[in-house]
């Protein structure tokens, strides 16, 4: 059976931790390891931070949208904004690339997502927004003990 949730919230940075906890609480239902939980929280942080500071340029009147579904041990996450979008996706996904060096961004957001997920797809349209599709196979109890 599939379990689904959809969430949207104001694009302000204090909601980053809220988004992390929400996704983690949803995933916790299938009893992942603490490590997987931390990884998924990190991934959510990176994507949500990107939406807030890049997508909405910290303007705060936008919204960030997250949907999550779990079927068996397969987690799918979609994180979306209606911000400025990304014109050169290939460049954006390069490790260390950042368009905001002045904010001391590491340019590692996409690299972190790719590292912690099995599949990362990005769809973006300048002026319309950015959508990140993430997939992750979790090792729930069954998988660990068998």
């Amino acid at each position: 059976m599939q379990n689904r949730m959809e969430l949207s919230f104001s694009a302000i940075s204090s909601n980053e931790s809220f988004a992390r906890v929400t996704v983690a609480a949803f995933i916790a239902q299938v009893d992942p390891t603490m490590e997987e939980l931390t990884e998924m929280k990190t991934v959510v942080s990176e994507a949500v931070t990107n939406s807030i500071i890049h997508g909405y340029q910290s303007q705060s009147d936008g919204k960030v949208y997250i949907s999550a579904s779990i079927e068996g041990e397969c987690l799918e996450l979609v994180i979306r904004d209606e911000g400025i979008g990304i014109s050169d996706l290939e460049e954006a996904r390069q490790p260390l690339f950042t368009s905001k060096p002045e904010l001391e961004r590491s340019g590692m957001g996409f690299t972190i997502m790719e590292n912690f997920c099995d599949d990362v797809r990005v769809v973006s349209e300048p002026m319309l927004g950015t959508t990140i599709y993430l997939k992750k196979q979790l090792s729930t109890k069954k998988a660990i003990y068998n």
Partner: protein
Amino acid sequence: IGEIQRFLRDDGTVKVSRSIKELGNRIRKMKDELTKTLGRTPTVNEMAKQLEVSPEEIVFAGEASRPLTSIHETVYE
């Protein structure tokens, strides 16, 4: 300040931030302990059982113990 804190505790009006911090510390210690004894990272339910709290509290309190900036640092260094 100590007096105010004591007052808050006695009054049953402990702030969430403080309570999360305390549980967050216990979570970190227990995670290390269990990782040693199990030889792998514990699951959320295993942690909840050991600490005698609900899985939701593990998720919630686990939050405060890791500031976001540390992630960038770990990856970078």
